C-alpha cells in the first residue's frame, strides 16, 4: 500500500531520557515509512509506541533527546525545522488525537469555540465560516445535534462524544497525516467501532495517512493495513495486518497467545516468557 512517495519517512529514530541513574532509552533505532494508508503501531506499555508518535511532531517532553538519521514529512526535515515552521505543520499537515478527551479538551471553552479556533488558526477564515465548517465537521463525526453540542462545555458530553469531538477538531484543518494515540481505548466496544468507522471513512475519502497507536492487537489487525510491533523501544516485526495471525517473532506470537478468546477452552492462558535476546531483536 506504500506509494512511491511516502508521506513520512523515519530512519533510525532514537529517544533517550537522562535520569539520575543513567540514560534510559525509550526508543532505540526505529525506522518506518507511512504512505496514504493506515499503519498500526502495537506494543505494551513502555514499548515506546506513544513516544514514537510524539517524536514525529517534536512533542517529546523535556529532558528527552530525539535523534534520527531521517525524520521527514513529504521530504521536509522535521528535526531541524524551526519552531515557527513546526507550528504550521502541527494540526494543519499532521495532527494528533490523544487518548483521553477529558484531559485534551479545554474545560473552560465551549466545544464549538475550540473546534472553530483550530480551523481559524490554520485557514484565516472568518467567524461565520468557521462556525459553518465546525457544524459540518460535528455532523461528519455523527454528532446528532451539532447546533446544541456547539454550545456545550466538555464536561457536559459523554466520553464517546468527547472522543468524536477530538477527532472533529483534529480533522477540521484537513491534515495529510493523522497520528491517533489510543484514540478509542477509553470507549465502550460499540462506540469504539463507530468512532473507528468514522476515521476509516474520512481516511479513505480524503486520502489521509494514519498512524494508529494501540495496545489492542485484534483491533489493530482488523482496522489497519500494516502493523509494526514494538518491544522495548525497537520494532521487532512488521507485517501486513491480514497476516498478523501468521506472525513469526516469538514476542508477537506470545502476545497473540496470551489474549483470552471468546471460544477459549484452554484451562490456562499461556504466559509470555520474555527472552532477553528480544531486546536486541
Amino acid at each position: 500500500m506504500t506509494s512511491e512517495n511516502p508521506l513520512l519517512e523515519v530512519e533510525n529514530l532514537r529517544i533517550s531520557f537522562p535520569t539520575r541513574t543513567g540514560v534510559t532509552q525509550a526508543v532505540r533505532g526505529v525506522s518506518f515509512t507511512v504512505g496514504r494508508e493506515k499503519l498500526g503501531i502495537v506494543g505494551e506499555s513502555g514499548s515506546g509506541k506513544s513516544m514514537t508518535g510524539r517524536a514525529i511532531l517534536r512533542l517529546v517532553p523535556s529532558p528527552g533527546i530525539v535523534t534520527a538519521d531521517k525524520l521527514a514529512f513529504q521530504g521536509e526535515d522535521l528535526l531541524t525545522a524551526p519552531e515557527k515552521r513546526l507550528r504550521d505543520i502541527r494540526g494543519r499537515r499532521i495532527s494528533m488525537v490523544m487518548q483521553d478527551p477529558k484531559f485534551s479538551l479545554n474545560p473552560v471553552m465551549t466545544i464549538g469555540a475550540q473546534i472553530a479556533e483550530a480551523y481559524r488558526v490554520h485557514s484565516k477564515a472568518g467567524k461565520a465560516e468557521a462556525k459553518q465548517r465546525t457544524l459540518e465537521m460535528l455532523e461528519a463525526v455523527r454528532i446528532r445535534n451539532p447546533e446544541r453540542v456547539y454550545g456545550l462545555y466538555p464536561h457536559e458530553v459523554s466520553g464517546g462524544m468527547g472522543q468524536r469531538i477530538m477527532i472533529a477538531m483534529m480533522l477540521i484543518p484537513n491534515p495529510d497525516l493523522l497520528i491517533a494515540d489510543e484514540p478509542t481505548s477509553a470507549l465502550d466496544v460499540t462506540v469504539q467501532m463507530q468512532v473507528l468507522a468514522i476515521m476509516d471513512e474520512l481516511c479513505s475519502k480524503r486520502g489521509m495517512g494514519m498512524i494508529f497507536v494501540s495496545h489492542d492487537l485484534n483491533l489493530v489487525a482488523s482496522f489497519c493495513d500494516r502493523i509494526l510491533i514494538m518491544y522495548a523501544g525497537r520494532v521487532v516485526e512488521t507485517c501486513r495486518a491480514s497476516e498478523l495471525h501468521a506472525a513469526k517473532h516469538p514476542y508477537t506470537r506470545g502476545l497473540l497467545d496470551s489474549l483470552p478468546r471468546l471460544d477459549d477452552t484452554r484451562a490456562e492462558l499461556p504466559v509470555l516468557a520474555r527472552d532477553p535476546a528480544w531486546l536486541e531483536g
Partner: protein
Amino acid sequence: MITVHDLRVTFGHGADAVAAVQGVTFDVKPGESFGLVGESGSGKSTVLRAVVGLNHDWTGTIAVDGKPQTPHRDKAFFKSCQMVFQDPYGSLHPRHTIDRILAEPIAIHRLGNADARIDRVLRDVGLGPQFRFRYPHQLSGGQRQRVAIARALVLEPRVLLLDEPTSALDVSVQAEILNLLKRLRAEHALTYVLVSHNLAVVAGMCDRLAVMNRGRIVEEMDAASLRRGEAREGYTQQLLRASQGYDRAAADSFKDFA
C-alpha cells in the same frame, strides 16, 4: 451464596435522580464464578458496590451466605466478602509498604499471627517474601494487582468480588492475573463475582454470566453458550459482534438499546 433480588440504586434527588440499577435479580451458588458484563454506565459496578457494602443507598434484597444484608455491614461480613478493584495504581496506599497494607486487615479483624499470614499470602499470589517491604511505586502494574488480590485474600474470605481486575493491565500481564485468579479459586474454593466489559475474559473465567444494559439485566446465560456465540437478545448479539474486532458493516448496523 449470594442472592440479589430486585436491587435498585438511585443517585441524586428529584429531577436530577439517575436510576443506575433498576431491579436486578440474580443468584450465585457457592463455589461458582459469576460474570456481570456490560458497557460503561450499565450499572454493573454499582451492583457490585452495593453487594460489598460500599453503596448504602439501595432497596431490594441482598443476602450473602444466607444472611440478609442491611445497608451497613458488620466486621464479620467483610471477613467473608472482599473486593478487588480495577486500578492497582489507585487502590494501594502509596506511602505504605506492602507489609503494612497487608497487616492492616489482619489487625482490624484481630486475627493475630500477622507475620506468618503475610508471608503465606504473598507466596500464594506468586510474589514471594522479597516484595514484602517494598512500596507500591516499586512494583509493576501486574505486581500491584497481585498485592491487591493478596490484601483481599489475607482475611481468607469465601467470596471475592472482582471489578474489572485486569482492564488496567497489558494483555501479557492480564493472562498472568487471570491464571492466578483461576488457581486461587480452585485452591480456596472461592466464589467469584467478576465485573468486566471484556466478553472473552468472562467467557474464560466464569461459569455463568448476566449481561446488563442501562441498569437492567438483559440476558442471563452460561459461559458455554457465550463461547458458542448463542445470544438470544439483540443487545448481547451486538456486544458480541463489537468484541470481535473492527468490521465496517457491523459498525454501521449498531443501534441504541433502551
